[in-house]
């Protein structure tokens, strides 16, 4: 019997891939599948589930629940759309915040550049919850911000910023900035400075150069960063909870409620499915628009 080299390679390949296949298959795909199943199950009376097909969870959110079994409440869709808005707003704000800094750092002379790069990535490693908590300390009525403003006589009465949407947005942007910065910076670094010179040489104004040369060339970084920021922003519940209290409700908070308090797991699962669907939609758009992979192939056919 002839054992070919290909057969040997196949064996090794299976050996390498089995762990991840098993692990992700069971513990990643499994949960996603069962969550999908749960979203279509009937919630039991005291928590738990009844294993019957039940599309009314989605009906409550999307509108076809007519009151017989479940009642349609537009508030869910409102919250969902509001979360979408907030997530997109976060993307835009963090983009606008990071873009000039990326340019600034990429123009710095060598040692300063490494130093500031180091500085900007460092806070990322400090615990998220800690950094959020710090904003509570800053934004609350007796907090640092109000103290400073009052000290300089700019206001008489403390500003009620905490527990508003403004606070939540500030927190979200703050948390997402490191994620937005790195892809943008990578794009900006790759920018060939001589292209800008050429553009000027050919008579373009600064604005035109920006719109026609810089923006298109840094687009991959912009899109990449936007995706990386959008996805965690949409389903976030920590930031709204810490900085928004009970007053700012995002879809993530809704989900958490359903699971930990209302004990309506199917409904929570349905909400989570909506989040996931939105994310997958954006990813598909990204893939079709941007992804053109060059496979630098150093591999062997098995």
């Amino acid at each position, binding site marked *: 019997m002839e054992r070919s080299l290909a057969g040997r390679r196949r064996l090794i390949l299976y050996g390498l891939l089995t762990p*991840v296949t098993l692990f992700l298959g069971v513990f990643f795909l499994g*949960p996603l599948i*069962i969550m999908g199943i749960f979203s279509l199950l009937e919630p039991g009376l005291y928590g738990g589930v009844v294993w019957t097909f039940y599309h009314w969870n989605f009906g409550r959110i999307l509108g076809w629940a007519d009151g017989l079994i479940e009642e349609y409440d537009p508030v869910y869709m409102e919250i969902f759309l509001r979360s979408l808005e907030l997530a997109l707003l976060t993307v835009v704000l963090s983009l606008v915040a990071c873009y000039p800094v990326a340019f600034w750092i990429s*123009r710095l002379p060598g040692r300063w550049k490494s130093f500031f790069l180091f500085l900007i990535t460092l806070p990322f490693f400090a*615990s998220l919850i800690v950094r959020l908590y710090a904003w509570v*300390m800053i934004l609350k009525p007796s*907090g640092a911000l109000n103290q400073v403003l009052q000290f300089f006589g700019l206001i008489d009465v403390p500003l009620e910023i905490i527990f508003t949407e403004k606070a939540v947005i500030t927190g979200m942007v703050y948390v997402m900035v490191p994620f937005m910065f790195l892809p943008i910076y990578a794009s900006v670094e790759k920018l060939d400075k001589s292209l*800008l010179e050429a553009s000027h040489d050919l008579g373009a104004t600064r604005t035109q150069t920006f719109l026609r040369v810089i923006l298109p060339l840094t687009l991959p970084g912009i899109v990449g960063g936007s*995706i990386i920021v959008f996805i965690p922003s949409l389903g976030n519940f920590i930031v709204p909870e810490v900085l928004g209290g009970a007053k700012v409700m995002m879809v993530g908070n809704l989900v958490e409620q359903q699971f930990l308090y209302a004990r309506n797991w199917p409904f929570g699962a349905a909400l989570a499915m909506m989040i996931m669907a939105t994310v997958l939609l954006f990813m598909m758009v990204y893939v079709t628009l941007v992804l053109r992979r060059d496979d630098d192939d150093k591999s062997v056919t098995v």
Partner: protein
Amino acid sequence: MTATASPMASAAPARRIGFLAKKGRWGWRALTLYGVVFFLFIYAPLIVIIVYSFNANPVNMMIWSGFTFDWYLSILGFSSDYFGSYATTDAVYVDSTEELIAAVENSLIVALTTTTVSTCIGTATAIALARYRFRARPFYRILMFMPMIMPDIVLGIGLLIFFVTAGFKLGLGTIIIGHCTFLGSYVFIVVQARLAGMDRSLEEASADLGANEWVTLRKIVLPQLAPGIVGGALLAFIISMDDLVITYFIAGVNSTTLPLFIFSMLRRGVKPEINAIATLLVLFSLVVASIGLYLRRRR
């Protein structure tokens, strides 16, 4: 910080070519100012915490009333009477430092185990996808990519439903499993990047000289991959230590991790010790991060 603007501006004006050179100095100065403000924005919260962790005011921790180490001592287990300090029983609620230490222990156990497992899985998968061409390869790429684009909350509740339905008992084990599902992907990305730049002829040379696949892996591939593997492992460790959302859903009653502990403290009501804990945590993270970035620089 404006002092730094001058040496830079005078050092090599010719460096700011093209786009900004036309704007001249003012454009550069505006940009620098923005950069500085940006960094202040980034670091302000951390500075606030660190500063106020030394605030002696036990009641309203935002009003400065003196410098003290009391909060640190308190969380480290020293009784406040011992030092005759500002701390009163009202202000102290980490009366069992054991809670805090248990949380830290749990976090470390989870993080170390997760790092080990996910590094192995991620590395093995990276090698498989980089060195072998097979029909299912694009699917595996997508599979490895998916955990990173899934929102935490979706993964968290998915795992919760899965564990409960399958009869798992929620505890450190489930937390570890949960972390590994997405951290393997992070390691994969880092190792794969390193692998792509590796010279394949080295592995061929090793085989040519008589080494089978296992020996080649040990003697040639892994030593070359080491910086990537270490980088991936460090990343996995940090993310695991800091994970809140997924852990929140799948931790059992007795398996609190540090981020969960702080989160619950926040919900119960903010007390001065929080600042001290937070500062220590920040310091710890910064040390780990610095080590990591330093190691990166050396290669």
